[in-house]
């Protein structure tokens, strides 16, 4: 029997999780908050991968496992597949989602008072940092899934162009 939960509940809970960790528990230590959130994601990914690979045989190689994440896993969790997969065949994979579901409503405020288009101004990086906090959870999920499939790795995210989001997976040799 499948039990369902409203998506807005999940969205709000994720928002609150990030707000709690980066605002209350580790208020001035964003790296610790990030690590904690990523660890939660890791546990979630671990358990989700058990559930979604129940009837499947083992994956023959790393590429098969990554393809599983791009197609089946992403559809189960985000109701769509990864739009673009790139690899350098040496352990680095880039998964690009053109409209990442958890960032679909994030909108950085347009800044009318800036005269220069300098990307390293404090306002720009604060907004980028605020948004990047929300990506540690999905990165953790991916890392959890892969480690449960026997592939230790490091996952990071790149949001140079919202709402497109790229996850970079570096498999540990």
């Amino acid at each position, binding site marked *: 029997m499948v039990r369902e939960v409203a998506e807005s509940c999940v969205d709000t809970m994720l928002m609150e999780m990030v707000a709690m960790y980066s605002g209350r528990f580790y208020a001035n230590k964003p790296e610790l908050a990030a690590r904690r959130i990523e660890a939660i994601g890791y546990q979630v990914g671990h358990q989700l991968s058990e559930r979604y690979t129940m009837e499947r045989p083992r994956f023959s190689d790393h590429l098969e496992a990554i393809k599983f994440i791009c197609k089946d896993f992403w559809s189960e969790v985000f109701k769509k597949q990864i739009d673009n997969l790139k690899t350098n065949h040496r352990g680095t994979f880039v998964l690009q989602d053109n409209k990442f579901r958890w960032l679909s*409503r994030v*909108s950085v405020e347009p800044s009318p008072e800036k005269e220069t288009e300098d990307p390293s101004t404090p306002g720009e990086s604060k907004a980028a940092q605020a*948004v990047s906090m929300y990506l540690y959870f999905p990165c953790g999920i991916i890392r959890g899934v892969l480690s449960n499939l026997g592939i230790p790795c490091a996952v990071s995210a790149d949001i140079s162009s919202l709402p497109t989001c790229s996850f970079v997976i570096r498999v540990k040799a």
Partner: protein
Amino acid sequence: MQFFGGSEISPSPPVPTASGNNAHMMYVFNRNGICLLYKEWNRPLHTLNPQQDHKLMFGLLFSLKSLTAKMDPVNADKGNLGVPQLPGQGCSFHSFRTNTYKLSFMETPSGIKIILVTHPKTGDLRESLKYIYSLYVEYVVKNPIYSPGSPIKSELFNTALDQYVRSIS
């Protein structure tokens, strides 16, 4: 709520043909009177500076709500004015019309007030205001980096809102 029937004799501006600028301006206030959003599409006349304008608008609505509830000849149950009510429940005013504009108003149970000022020949905008509220929930409330009570700066919301309001005839 019309004080005088829309008489054809009093001068009114020509009806625009849904060319995209039927709305004059829009305000969104929260429960505490903070103006979360003020958008202007077509407002040739500015009488007051923005701060006074917002304060006047909020005060006006507060008084009008209170007046309409107290003068209600029909409702036996004198609800407490501070109690959150669904739009349409109890006695709540939803629009007033002058010879030059129509002001439509909606208040949600959470205290968000949406005011849209349009051309006087506009019909009932209650459904439109409900849709605008749903846009607000979607793009502002669910935006992780929005902090409640602060002015709305979301591009997604502004674009969607602009598109929608321009399509209201």
